[in-house]
C-alpha cells in the first residue's frame, strides 16, 4: 500500500515537468509580445541606439523566440534564473529566496486561521441548520467573501493600530505583525471553507451510515466528529488546498497595505518595470508551489478515503 503511494507520488512529480514547461512557455511568450525593450529599460530612455543594439546582442534578444526559450529552460535546469534588470541587479534566485519564506509564512498562517474558523463554524451551522446561529454564520460568511481584503485591512489598521494601538500597522518582524495580515487574508478563505463544510456536512449527516451510527447508540458528538466529519473532508480539503495554493502566489493588496516584503508585491513590481527574469522566476515558483499543494491534497485524499487509496494500486 505504502509502496503504491510512493510510486504515485513519484509519478505525479514527473507530471509536474510538462506543467512547469507549459507555464514557462506561456510566460515567456507573454513577456516576448509585451511592448518594451529590456535593453532600453536597462540603459534608460536616452541611451545611444548603438549601445542598445550591442546590449541586445549580448543578452541574446535578437535570437529567434525558441532559441531564447530553450536557453532559458536550460538555465533553469541548472537553477540559474538570471539576474534582475533592476538595480541593485541581484540574481533572481537571491531576490525570490529573500521573499518567498515571508509569503509562505503569511499563507500558512492565514490558512490555519481560516481552517480553525471555517471548519468548526461550518459543522455547527450544518448540525443546527436554520437556527439563529446558522443564519448569523451565513451572514458573516457572506460578508467575509464580499468585503475586499484591502478595505478590511485598512479598517483593521484604523481600529487596532491607530485607535486602540494594540498591534503594529506594518512590517513583518514578529508574531505581533503577523496577526492583522493573516486575519485579513484568512477571512475570505474562512468564509469559503465554512460554506463548503456546511454544505458537505449537511449532505453527509443525511446518509444511511450516520443513521447506522446513531442506531448503535453512539453519542451525537461522536456521530458528527468521528463518522460524519471524515466523510465530509474531501471537498473541504480541496477548497483549503486551492486557497493555500492561491495564497502562495502572494496576496498583493494585503502585502501592499501592511508593507510586507512578500513575493506577490515584488512580482507585480517586476511586471511594471519589465523585469523579465524576475517575472519568469516568480511565476515559475508560484506554479511550482501550486502544483506541490495539489499533490499534497491528492495524497491527503488517499489518507482520508480508502476508496481513493485503493485506486493507487
Amino acid at each position, binding site marked *: 500500500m505504502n509502496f503504491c503511494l510512493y510510486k504515485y507520488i513519484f509519478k505525479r512529480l514527473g507530471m509536474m515537468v510538462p506543467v512547469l514547461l507549459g507555464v514557462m512557455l506561456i510566460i515567456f511568450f507573454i513577456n516576448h509580445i509585451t511592448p518594451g525593450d529590456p535593453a532600453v529599460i536597462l540603459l534608460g530612455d536616452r541611451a545611444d541606439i548603438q549601445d542598445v543594439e550591442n546590449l541586445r546582442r549580448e543578452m541574446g534578444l535578437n535570437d529567434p523566440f525558441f532559441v531564447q526559450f530553450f536557453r532559458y529552460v536550460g538555465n533553469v535546469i541548472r537553477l540559474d534564473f538570471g539576474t534582475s534588470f533592476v538595480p541593485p541587479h541581484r540574481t533572481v534566485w537571491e531576490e525570490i529566496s529573500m521573499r518567498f519564506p515571508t509569503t509562505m509564512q503569511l499563507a500558512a498562517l492565514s490558512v490555519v486561521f481560516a481552517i480553525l474558523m471555517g471548519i468548526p463554524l461550518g459543522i455547527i451551522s450544518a448540525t443546527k441548520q436554520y437556527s439563529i446561529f446558522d443564519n448569523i454564520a451565513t451572514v458573516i460568511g457572506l460578508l467575509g467573501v464580499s468585503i475586499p481584503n484591502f478595505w478590511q485591512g485598512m479598517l483593521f489598521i484604523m481600529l487596532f493600530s491607530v485607535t486602540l494601538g494594540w498591534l503594529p500597522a506594518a512590517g513583518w518582524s514578529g508574531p505581533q505583525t503577523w496577526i492583522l495580515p493573516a486575519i485579513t487574508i484568512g477571512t475570505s478563505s474562512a468564509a469559503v471553507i465554512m460554506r463548503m463544510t456546511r454544505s458537505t456536512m449537511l449532505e453527509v449527516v443525511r446518509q*444511511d*451510515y450516520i443513521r447506522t451510527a446513531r442506531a448503535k447508540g453512539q453519542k451525537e458528538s461522536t456521530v458528527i466528529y468521528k463518522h460524519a466529519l471524515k*466523510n465530509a473532508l474531501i471537498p473541504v480539503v480541496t477548497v483549503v488546498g486551492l486557497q493555500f495554493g492561491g495564497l502562495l502566489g502572494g496576496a498583493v493588496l494585503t502585502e501592499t497595505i501592511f508593507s510586507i516584503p512578500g513575493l506577490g508585491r515584488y512580482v507585480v513590481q517586476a511586471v511594471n518595470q519589465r523585469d523579465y527574469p524576475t517575472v519568469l522566476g516568480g511565476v515559475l515558483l508560484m506554479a511550482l508551489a501550486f502544483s506541490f499543494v495539489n499533490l499534497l491534497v491528492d495524497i491527503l485524499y488517499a489518507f482520508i478515503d480508502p476508496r481513493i487509496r485503493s485506486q493507487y494500486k
Partner: protein
Amino acid sequence: MAENIKSGGKETLLDIKGLSIHYKTEDGTVRAVNDLNFKLNKGETIGLVGETGAGKTTTALGILRLVPDPPGKIVGGEILLDGEDLVKKTEAEMRTIRGQKISMIFQDPMTSLNPVMPVRDQIAEVILLHEKVTAAEALKKAEEMLDLVGIRAERAKEYPHQFSGGMRQRVVIAIALACNPGLLIADEPTTALDVTIQAQVLELMKNLKQEFNTAMIMITHDLGIVAEICDKVAIMYAGSVVEFADKYELFKNPKHPYTIGLFNSIPDIDTDVDNLKPIKGLMPDPTDLPPGCPFHPRCDNVKPECSQKMPQNLEVSENHFVKCLLFDDRR
C-alpha cells in the same frame, strides 16, 4: 380491548399502543403513523407488511426514537419495551437501549456502512459502547461476529467498498447482533440484494435469530418472506396496522378488505390471467388522509359510515385484530 392481547403464556417484549408519528413540513403535516397497535413476544418474529409509504420505516425509526426531529415527532402513544415506555425515555437512556436492547438492519447495505472505516472497527464500535471490554477485546469479538456471519477474519480490516452487497449486509447483521439485542428490526433487509443472495441472507438471519433467541420485526412488502420466517403478521395501511394476527390465521382467514386485496393481487402460477388484479386506486396522500377509514375510497365493501367514522382496533377472534367498520358491532 386492544390492550388485552393475550400472549399465550409467552412473555411480552414489545407492546405498541396508539403510536402516532407526524412530520411537520411547510406543505402540511404528514401523518406517517396513526394510532398504530401491535404486540410482540420474546423470541417471536412479526412481519410488518405494507405498500411503499405505509409508514413501516417510520414505525421502525420511531421504536428506536430515531425519527429525524425536526421535522418528525412522536405525537402520541406508547412504545412499551419490557413494560417501560420508550417514548418517555431521555436521549441518554435511549442511547443505552439502541444497539444493546434494540438494533436495526437497514434497507440498503451499499450505503449503511461508513465508507472510511474498516468493517471490523464498525462492529467493535457497538461492542465498546455497550459492553465493559477493552478495545482489543472488542476487536476480537468483532472478528468472531464476522466469522459468525460467514466472513473470514483476514478480511476484517477491509473497508466496505471491498465487499459485495450481500457481504455488506452480513456485516450490517453482525453489527446488529453484536450485543445480543432482545429485539432486531430488519427494514427490508433483502430488497436491495440479488434474489440468490436474498435467500442466503434470509437463511442467515433466521438461523442467527434462533441462536440468539432474538425477537424480530421484519419490515417487508414481500408476502413470501412473511410466509417463510414470520410468526405473526401486521398489515399496514396509511400509517396504521389494519390487521394483525398469527401468520397461519391471517393467510387462511384474512378479514380486512385491504388484506384480501393484497392476497388477490398475488398472481397465481396455476391459472393464466390476462390482467393482474391490483387493488384499485392509489395510497392516499399522508398530508391529506381521507376522513373516516383511510382505505374507504379503495374499498370494495365500502359502507356510507366508512367515510365518517374512524374504525377501532377490534379483536374478531382470539389474537386476530382488524381495524374495519364491517366488524364493528356497535355501528
